[in-house]
């Protein structure tokens, strides 16, 4: 066991207890059973609950509620975070129910879903919360029996006397634990003693999901609640002047129509949004609002250039000459080494803008009064939303509450808070509770996209086919996709990296594995070509480079651990039987490091009637300790499909400032028939504290896909979406 100082005190626990106890304002049934199998016998619903600390509530029957602090976007933290608490508390998972905690910045830390950080940042806090609860229950039992805590054992929700027959359950002693002083030091379990962490635990919301119970923001209802929709300008570079307000107000089912302005004087990154002056329509039937929206006749004024996709490509190229270099790195002398090299290669890679396209469109509930604001809905950043609503309404943060619903996808889209802010503005205007709902078109055409990128790679080999010069320069609208200190930095004597920014009036934001998703595809395709030029096996070539970084690294600021990087490559090589040739299978490999985790993937492709089809993807992952292996595999499988699907099929193009792909009839996402037949995931076993997993599975899939396509078709792929470049007709849905 490890002794650690708790960071809690009585005051912080009381604060959260009050909020958690009285703050569960969501109108959904709060009890989420962790075991969805009705045949598993559970303890009965308690008559009385006792707040042990802000994470744990124990009922008199022994049922335990664990609060999950972070937003759930499908990354499964609503299951895995409580698992960590339950491990240290030492309770039987079948007696645990999970509740979504409200935003409480006074107690919980890092209540957001972004950067694959939920588990990584809360690992210690969650373990301490469980261990603190366990210790308090032990102290209460010791006091009850007049013996020392050291005379007791606790396991699976039962406390036993070491040298005696007495035992009691957590439920029986919970009422006495409430008054126990929070310990200043607690003991954490040894990692080898974990019983729950590392086992496959089913999604706590699964039963509700498969039976269609209300869970998501869009499902939320409140008595007296109105519905609202918004209309934004049809093009980037346009602004709303006025609209046929009176006509819209007279339409059936419309209660009000007006203009809102959600411009904040002091915006933060999460306030990013294409349009701040919007038409709002209020009523009580979604369909009637949709019809009223179609009847809007508005005047728009042009305030900046109306851009198109050809111009975007020109601007990305132009940025290499006149753009702003935001970050760079130089080791040795790239230019001289490149000139002296025996063999050289130069390639350019590009990718269009992309939309997030969460399946649940943006929505939010707001109930704003003169003195309070209540917000309920899908947000990855509840604290940022609270801050922005506070600015909009000029209302102190203490008067604002935010509750999080389960989210129908995030992918970075719901890091941006504008839809919650707009709901607050509408609620304030009408003086009633309201739920704002976006249509698919509203969401796909309003901005906050994955940026468009263009990167140029150059490499030089010496007489012995050693890599002696490497450069990457990448421009992006608005931010280049280059990480100067990532691989292959540290492996090449003469290295140059430049991240170049370019201007656009299209608004952009973080999109699952920001920049990594593009860079991994470009860099890992390029490395594949360099390995081919060197006449080396692509895995051996990479391993040689990592050997260099392990034994004699160039520079001191390399972001990655080359041994862990090489580790996933070796594992995927072994599991996929790399090197075994099957004339009908075309293979590509890639490895990437991001969000503090390492993933290597091999894509196996076949040709069906001359068309490429992915048979299998092999994944090797090093993300430290894995909390919930089967769910972690699900996440990596999803990342692979996300990476392959978007690189293959998706694009967002512009004409006169307007988006051409406005819904799923034109914006293509991967469908069932296009998915790999199988994705197998292997984890490196180690004792390293958990690192990111929501994002790292995605980026290498793009490179492995491009490299497998090359083997299958003899053609290299430089421009996304790849399906546009394939001569043979792809098996489209």
């Amino acid at each position, binding site marked *: 066991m490890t002794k650690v100082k708790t960071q809690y005190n009585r005051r912080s626990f009381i604060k959260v207890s009050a909020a958690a106890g009285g703050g569960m304002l969501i109108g959904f049934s709060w009890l989420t059973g962790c075991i969805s199998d009705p045949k598993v016998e559970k303890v009965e619903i308690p008559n009385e609950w006792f707040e042990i600390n802000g994470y744990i509530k124990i009922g008199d029957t022994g049922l335990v509620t664990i609060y999950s602090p972070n937003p759930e976007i499908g990354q499964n933290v609503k299951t895995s975070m409580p698992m960590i608490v339950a491990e240290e508390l030492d309770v039987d998972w079948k007696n645990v129910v999970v509740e979504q905690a409200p935003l409480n910045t006074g107690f919980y830390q890092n209540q957001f879903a972004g950067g694959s950080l939920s588990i990584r940042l809360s690992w210690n806090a969650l373990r301490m919360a469980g261990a603190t609860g366990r210790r308090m229950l032990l102290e209460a039992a010791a006091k009850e029996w007049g013996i020392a805590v050291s005379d007791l054992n606790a396991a699976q929700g039962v406390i036993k006397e070491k040298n005696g027959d007495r035992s009691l359950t957590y439920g029986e002693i919970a009422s006495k634990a409430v008054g126990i002083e929070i310990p200043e030091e607690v003991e954490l379990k040894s990692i080898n003693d974990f019983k729950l962490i590392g086992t496959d635990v089913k999604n706590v919301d699964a039963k509700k999901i498969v039976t269609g119970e209300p869970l998501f923001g869009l499902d939320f209802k409140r008595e007296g609640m109105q519905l609202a929709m918004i209309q934004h300008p049809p093009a980037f570079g346009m602004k709303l002047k006025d609209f046929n307000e009176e006509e819209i107000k007279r339409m059936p089912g419309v209660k009000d129509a007006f203009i809102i302005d959600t411009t904040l004087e002091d915006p933060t990154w999460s306030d990013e949004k294409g349009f701040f002056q919007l038409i709002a329509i209020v009523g009580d039937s979604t369909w009637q609002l949709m019809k009223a929206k179609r009847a809007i006749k508005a005047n728009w004024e042009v305030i900046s250039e109306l851009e198109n996709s050809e111009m975007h490509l020109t601007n990305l190229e132009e940025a290499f000459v006149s753009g702003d270099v935001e970050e760079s790195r130089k080791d040795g002398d790239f230019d001289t080494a490149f000139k002296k090299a025996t063999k050289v290669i130069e390639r350019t890679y590009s990718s269009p803008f992309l939309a997030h396209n969460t399946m649940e*469109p943006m929505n939010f509930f707001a109930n704003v009064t003169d003195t309070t604001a209540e917000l309920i809905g899908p947000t990855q950043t509840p604290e940022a939303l609270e801050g922005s609503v506070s600015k909009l309404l000029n209302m102190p943060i203490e008067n604002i509450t935010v509750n999080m619903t389960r989210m129908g996808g995030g992918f970075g889209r719901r890091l941006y808070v504008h839809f919650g802010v707009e709901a607050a503005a509408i609620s304030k205007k009408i003086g009633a509770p309201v739920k704002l709902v976006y249509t698919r078109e509203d969401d796909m055409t309003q901005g906050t996209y994955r940026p468009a990128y263009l990167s140029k790679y150059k490499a030089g080999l010496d007489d012995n086919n050693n890599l002696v010069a490497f450069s990457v320069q990448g421009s992006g609208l608005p931010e280049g996709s280059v990480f100067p200190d990532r691989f292959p930095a540290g492996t090449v004597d003469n290295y140059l990296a430049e991240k170049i920014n370019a201007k656009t009036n299209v608004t952009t934001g973080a999109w699952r594995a920001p920049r990594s998703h593009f860079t991994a595809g470009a860099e890992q395709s390029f490395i594949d070509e360099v390995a081919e030029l060197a006449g080396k096996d692509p895995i051996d070539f990479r391993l040689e480079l990592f050997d260099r970084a392990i034994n004699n690294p160039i520079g001191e600021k390399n972001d990655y651990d080359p041994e862990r990087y090489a580790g996933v490559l070796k594992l995927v090589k072994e599991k996929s039987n790399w090197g075994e040739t099957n004339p009908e299978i075309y293979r590509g490999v890639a490895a990437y490091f991001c969000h503090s985790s390492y993933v290597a993937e091999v894509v196996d492709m076949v040709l069906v009637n001359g068309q490429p089809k992915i048979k299998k993807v092999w994944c090797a992952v090093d993300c430290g300790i894995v909390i919930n292996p089967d769910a972690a595999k699900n996440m990596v499988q*999803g990342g692979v499909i996300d990476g392959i699907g978007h690189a293959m099929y998706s694009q967002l193009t512009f004409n006169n400032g307007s988006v051409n792909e406005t819904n799923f009839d034109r914006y293509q996402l991967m469908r069932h028939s296009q998915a790999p037949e199988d994705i197998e995931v292997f984890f490196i076993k180690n004792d390293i504290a958990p690192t990111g997993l929501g994002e790292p599975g995605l980026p290498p899939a793009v490179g492995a896909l491009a490299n497998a396509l090359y083997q299958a078709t003899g053609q290299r792929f430089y421009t996304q979406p790849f399906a546009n470049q394939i001569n043979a007709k792809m098996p489209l*849905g």
Partner: protein
Amino acid sequence: MPTYNLKINGKLQSVEADSDTPLLWVLRDHVDLVGTKFGCGIAQCGACTVHINGNATRSCSLPVSNLQGMEIITIEGLSEHGDHPVQQAWLEHDVPQCGYCQAGQIMSAAALLNNNSNPTDEDIDAAMNGNICRCGTYIRIKQAIKTASKL
């Protein structure tokens, strides 16, 4: 506004709505069955899939005026205790990530198995291609459909 008598999940319900109101919004706004999801509004994503006389149908593009006398089944009515073979298989394979598209996926899968109790991979692709899963749970969905076919 006209009134429509609909048979939803075996129950007769009287609904007052514009004649062009899609079934999706009748379900969600009028009769409080929110398990059927709004995804695209143009029958391209499958999140709104329900059964009409046993066939998987996109409720977002189906006007209420066409539905009198038809047997409408939503995810809430697929089974009494949430234990339809497809639902059981979904739990066994722990299919969902975000979960939003899954009601539509399950309704498409259940209709497929009604018509074809032992579908091949190609049958599954053909029946399920109208249902997008943005999280990428396609492999588990296929596995779950195969498991359900044996239950």
